[in-house]
């Protein structure tokens, strides 16, 4: 049975207590996108600055949320700052891969094998998720997956907007 330790790893609590890249960026030049989790009313605002070479030169995170959504947003911001839009998109799909669960395997014993979490899934292509792997435990608490993916979905939207701006 998954316990709270699987969810609230120390790295996650650290990012929750001291979130990285919190704040706002001036728009324009930055793109601002809001995301909502209708389940719990959480809101995340993602600001990204993208230069002419499609590199994310700066990112800021606003809004309010639970430990999982805040920590995920904080780790995301640290991971993609300085990356190109293409790399960031790879990060997004790698992270969403980490968060995906195989239907029908819920309600098992909650072990990683049972949950269909493949040890290699965190390394999609050349992407190393690093600290973000601590969020793997979220998969054992399916209602929280939306908390973890909220900022990533919002970032994906922001990147679409930034890409269409240039």
């Amino acid at each position, binding site marked *: 049975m998954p316990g*709270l330790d699987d969810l609230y790893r120390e790295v996650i609590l650290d990012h929750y207590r001291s979130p990285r890249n919190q704040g706002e960026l001036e728009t324009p030049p930055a793109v601002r996108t809001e995301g909502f989790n209708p*389940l*719990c009313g959480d809101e995340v605002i993602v600001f990204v600055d993208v230069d002419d070479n499609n590199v994310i030169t700066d990112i800021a995170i606003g809004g309010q*949320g639970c430990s999982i959504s805040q920590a995920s947003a904080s780790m995301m911001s640290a991971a993609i700052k300085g990356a190109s839009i293409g790399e960031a998109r790879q990060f997004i799909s790698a992270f969403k891969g980490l968060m995906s669960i195989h239907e029908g395997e819920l309600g098992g014993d909650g072990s990683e094998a049972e949950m269909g979490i493949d040890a290699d899934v965190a390394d999609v292509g050349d992407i190393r998720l690093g600290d973000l792997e601590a969020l793997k435990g979220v998969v054992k608490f399916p209602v929280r997956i939306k908390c973890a993916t909220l900022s990533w979905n919002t970032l994906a939207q922001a990147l679409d907007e930034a890409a269409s701006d240039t």
Partner: protein
Amino acid sequence: MSIPADIKRDFPVLQQQVHDKPLIYLDSGNTSQKPQAVIDAMNEYYETTNANVHRGSYDLAVRATEALEGARAKVARFINAPATNEVVFTKNATEAFNLIARSWGAANLGPGDAVVISEMEHHANIVPWHMLSAEKGFELRWIPVTPDGHLDLRDLDTLLEGAKLVSVTAMSNVLGTLNDIPRLAEAAHGAGALLAVDGSQYVPHVPTDVQAMGADFLIFTGHKMLGPMGIGVLWACADLLEAMPPFLGGGEMILNVTKEGFTTTEIPWKFEAGTPMVAEAVGLGAAIDYLNNLGMDNVRAHEIELTDYALRTLNERYGDKIVIHGPQVASERGGVLSFVYGEPDMRVHPHDIAQVLDQAGVCVRAGHHCAKPLLQTMNVPATSRASVYVYNDESDIDALAEALEASSDIFAF
């Protein structure tokens, strides 16, 4: 007589363990658990009585029809309605509000008119008005909520100018506030408006007399009062229902259909298109029997006692680490307790609290409780909410208080 000490035995779902701990159910404001008597009544209906209603001439169909109409009569008596045919069955409270908006609202509201609701409404009493107002061009006005969780009625007269409908909850599902419905009825009627009352949180917990309330519409939902999901109630006086156009069209609601058009049947069936939820009506009837057997005065007294115990226990144990929203006197409120918890400068997010409590077997709701405008006014994105009903007792509150401690351990700063 009061609520029997062993009442939990009547509720099969409460007999289980989750995460190796006894299940402590504190989310009845969301949906209530069902006593064995309700489950049995629905099973028995399917085992002995099932047939389509109002259609068959054989004995079985007659008995099924009697089961449906018998449940309607129980509902009417439960709220002291003047007549049984004033009780319309809907899918839930949400559908009842949509019925009022689409039927009465579409026929009576236009540019220059106003509908007055309050900041403490559930989305069920907000969104149908937003939807209709976009089409019909009437104004939606809001009765504000004071910082201590009451309706601010100081500017009521101005708000009511040109209003055709006031639609307000009798008890807030977030704050527990009991609103002064007779006063609102008088003010609404004085201004020439009708009054709709959302009784979703009130009717399950407080003896209800629709005539004393002075309401023109009363809405509630079966699953919050020990009944099944899938049945709700709209009550309105016969004259009003007669004058309203139908809501959904189809079978059951017609008198005659030709290639040129149709005529509607009498109330309440005019508003009940298609095969109705007979087993759910039977279940709701059984729930009403169960509540009557406990005595609604006892139900309310138990709620006040337990709410008082919860306010005292949590405030004494946690001091400034907990803020319980809404009125602080149990007799002025219902048993839904929304709270924020944690160090004053760093509250634990409700979603995290609910997660930690779940691990201790304690079920509470975290989020916006389908009342986002209210949470905006309160300036919080979400709250944790524990809500009690007849089967809860002091041991459940103690379990909640104890389990909260664990979230301080994890999120201590």
